[in-house]
């Protein structure tokens, strides 16, 4: 069972601290695509746009240009 803290390590938790080790050990992590092996993996994700919250719709980046 993972503790609340291990779920929410947040950005205060640095790599390699004790909490992180507990987290790694507690969670089953079976082999999967090894990122470091630089293996070219081609996967096509078929996404249902209806289920995605697209925060670009109707939105825009709003910035104010400094007035001198």
């Amino acid at each position: 069972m993972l503790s609340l803290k291990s779920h929410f390590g947040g950005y205060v938790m640095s790599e390699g601290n004790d909490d992180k080790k507990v987290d790694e050990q507690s969670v089953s992590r079976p082999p999967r695509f090894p990122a470091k092996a630089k293996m070219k993996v081609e996967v096509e994700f078929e996404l249902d746009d209806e289920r995605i919250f697209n925060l670009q719709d109707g939105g825009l980046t709003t910035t104010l240009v400094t007035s001198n």
Partner: protein
Amino acid sequence: MTTMQARSIHDPYPCPVRADMLRKGMDIQLLSSFRYLLETAYNKLNIADNRLLCGLQILEEDLSKNYKIHPEVYGAHWQLMLAMKKNNVSRILYIIDNFTFPESTNSYSIGIFPQPDTGIVNEQLIRDTLDQQHLQAYGSSIDATSPSIELVQSSSELINNVFKRIQQVLPDVAAEIETYITKISLIDSKELSAGTSFPVFGLMYLHYIKDYQNWTAYLEHLVHEAAHHHLFAVIATENVFERDSEKKFYSPLRLEPRPMSAIFHQMFVLSRVIYVVSEFQKAYPESIELKSVNTAYKNKTDDPSFQKKFFMAADTIAKNACLTQTGDLLFHQCCKLVENAEIVYS
């Protein structure tokens, strides 16, 4: 007096109850979408690790405790979605392996942007999002560097002081700001004064306070950027436009022409700023700073009042926009609000 009942979505006046409902709606949609993306990625890539799904479940429980989802979660969701749309497996794995859910919050915190290079992935995902958004809008990455600790300290104090003033004069406005904004990042920039990017909903970036500025600059920025958040939450709930075209129009706030959605945002935001400055002038009738509040938003010699800018935007909308009933009602209510508000300029 704080409003206890939710105002209509067509009503431009701030309302914390309505803001809370809209914010919760945003957060629920975000977490549902994040869950869908994660489950799709895990299934497709045959990943059994459930670290992020467990974290997501706790965030879902947090919503019932009146917490708000942190902009870092919005940023990670956005980056994961982009990576999946591009079928970029290494990027997906990078996010899944390194992102950690921040704790939910019910108040804003003030920090700096960009963070010094600490290798924190959560921050990097926000940075990537802002860079991409600025690249799309202006053709270059966000022009922002970290301000010094001294500038951050003085600016943070000023933001908190201004927020306290808003709480005293217009508690509904303050409550709405707190509902939408959970992270304020101070920046140093040659081009930017303040900004918001919806893929990182809840984040507002503000330039540190400059020597020639006073507290009214932050009064305007806080109200302005929170108003963008509110309108975006409205648009995420109900359509405002029957159709939006690629056509661009003269903007009272920018040098370059903008799409109708941006003009509508400007109109709405100006109505809020006009309302707040007007109420503050009533609360502080002797304040010279409020009478000389900076109305300039762009590098242009002309510097018309907030009201003139509002009616420029309103005129463009009246002549060109194809609004839904919601959009039309909101637009006309904003016009009424501005007609009833008075600002004295020195």
